[in-house]
């Protein structure tokens, strides 16, 4: 029994990380129909900068706030130089290459300046595990899926109750029509990238005490977060969170009852299978493109 609980809780912790990354992809895609493929590196930026600011002697709260702010600015700059010049042309996919390139550059620069070693981000929530039904888990690992669910709830309210949120939904629904009624479409896209990147930075700070901060920490998370966003349905925020949590739990049960070596094969097989049956993802809505 405790084994099952152990795998379930560990899966929720990891799944929560995937979900946080996937929410960022959802926000970007919804308004710009483009994503930052280096979004995993935004997590890295948040975690690494927090440690750097702590090294400078700043209090933890200011270090976190500054790291999120820099993450947000990174999103603004990235949207301006790597997305907007390429995404405005119909069917352009240049932004895929530019965002991947920026991610690689960011990782290389971080390795040089921050160092090659992973470093811990201190948190009192990873000092001792809590025991639930015989299974051990760090409170920080439990906080991650809770944070993902809370962020989606806040996002839901924001998108429906605020003028900016409604404008973002309008752009997501129909860019041209939104532009015609006076919504600044490019401005909305920029704000979306800023929001996604700020969230990425925050996510990095949340997960770093569990996985440690390093230049390469975002690479695999970015890939799996994107996979989760696709199978959850990138247009649905609750969908990507549910998919993230499910994916994490499945991974842990495969680890536990089949083998670690089979984990990625089984996981990505599920991704392919889901997409064959539901091309728009489990919870996504079918997007109609008028030509």
């Amino acid at each position, binding site marked *: 029994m405790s084994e099952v609980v152990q795998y379930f809780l560990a899966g929720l912790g990891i799944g929560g990380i995937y979900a946080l990354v996937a929410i960022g992809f959802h926000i970007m895609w919804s308004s710009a129909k483009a994503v930052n493929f280096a979004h995993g590196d935004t997590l890295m930026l948040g975690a690494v900068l927090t440690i750097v600011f702590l090294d400078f002697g700043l209090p933890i709260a200011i270090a976190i706030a500054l790291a999120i702010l820099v993450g947000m600015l990174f999103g603004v700059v990235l949207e301006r130089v790597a997305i907007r010049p390429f995404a405005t042309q119909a069917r352009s996919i240049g932004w895929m290459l530019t965002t991947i390139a920026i991610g690689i550059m960011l990782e290389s620069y971080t390795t040089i300046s921050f160092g090659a070693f992973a470093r*811990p981000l201190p948190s009192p929530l990873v000092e001792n595990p809590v025991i639930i039904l015989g*299974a051990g888990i760090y409170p920080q690992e439990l906080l991650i899926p809770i944070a993902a669910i809370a962020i989606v709830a806040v996002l839901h309210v924001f998108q429906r109750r605020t003028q900016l949120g409604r404008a973002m939904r309008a752009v997501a629904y129909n860019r041209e029509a939104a532009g015609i009624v006076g919504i600044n479409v490019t401005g909305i896209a920029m704000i979306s990238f800023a929001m996604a990147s700020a969230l990425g930075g925050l996510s990095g700070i949340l997960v770093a005490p569990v996985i440690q901060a390093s230049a390469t920490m975002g690479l695999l998370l970015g890939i799996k977060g994107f996979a989760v966003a696709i199978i959850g349905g990138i247009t649905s925020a609750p969908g990507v969170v549910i998919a993230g949590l499910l994916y994490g739990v499945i991974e842990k049960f495969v680890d536990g009852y089949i083998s670690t070596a089979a984990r990625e094969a089984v996981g990505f097989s599920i991704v392919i299978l889901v997409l064959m049956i539901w091309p728009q993802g489990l919870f996504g809505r079918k997007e109609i493109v008028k030509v």
Partner: protein
Amino acid sequence: MITRTVIAGAITAALALQGGASIADEANACIGNSGPVTGPAAFGGKAIRMGAELAVEDINAAGGVLGQELEFIQYDDAGAPPRGVDNVRRIGLADNCVAMIGGYHSTVALAQRDPIHEIGMPYVGTIAANTKVIENGRDPNYMFRVSAKDRWVTKFLVAEGMQRSANNAIGIMYENTGWGKGAYPDLQNALREQGLEEVGAETFNWEDTDMTPQLIRLRDAGAEVLIMWGLDREGNQILRSLQKIGWSPQVIGAWGFAGNLGELAGELANCALIMQTYSWMGELEPSAQALYDRMQEDFGIGSQEEIRMGSGVANAYDAVHIIAKAIEIAGSFDRAKVYDALFEVEHEGLVTSYSPAFERTEERHDAILPEAYKLTAWYDGKLLPLDQTPCE
């Protein structure tokens, strides 16, 4: 048109002959290295550079080699085998160095065996420990090593593990890479030589964040000692997962955990035992203290624990001295003569006394014998010689 073609052909032939002649004749007074200058293992590249540059400084201060100043050239492979192969060609053909020292990753070193033998340039490994890097079935075999050999390391770890397990119940956790997969059969053989089998063996991938499923299986199989084969980041996750499932076996690891495991895992790493060839921690011999002082001055090392992969520094230092001595014995920068001379080198090194450094058997192309391996222990964030800790 015909004239142009003839002239172009003649120039090409002349260049080819010139190139061939320079490779066949004496090489240049330089030692190359392909190592990770960037990427997650850049600390390994830095360790090699520190050791090699300190040795080159010493050699040049004493008059150089055969009256010439020795040069050290380092290229970045970032842990990628194709770049490592390309670097061998740059070192052997473009720079025409007399020899090269090896890097951090076994996967790179394995890929470099072919170009090394195509060029006929002695290669002396300094960190990458995969057995087949050296024991590769070639004759002549240009691959040498002044570092640990996985096959010997596994015997060392198994022997140490048996001393700490009442029932000789040893479980294995190894990383799912070329290095880890190469070590697993060696570990099995080391156990079989003792009439044992592992109670369980589990793998993990780089960047894995939770190892509880694997550890639950090993715990339930009755393991008392856990031999770990991997790197610091994943080692930290193993220790944290052990804490989560409330299990505390004796942990013994290969030297991939000699980087910053203590910083990552804090007290959880206390008394995790790690094999090394050299430790810069604690009280040092006068000669080692002098080198440490220069490391502080030349490379900005602030304290002993800032020396990452300290074994690599010492190995590279000894490797460059051994190559320099071989050149002196050969009396020439001719690679074939230097190759033969490597078997005649006797050297009092930092790691051990090399007497001789190499022998003409495949197994003894490794210079550091298992007797020289050391057991160190993480304690309060520092990796110390075992006798400087309360660990057993």
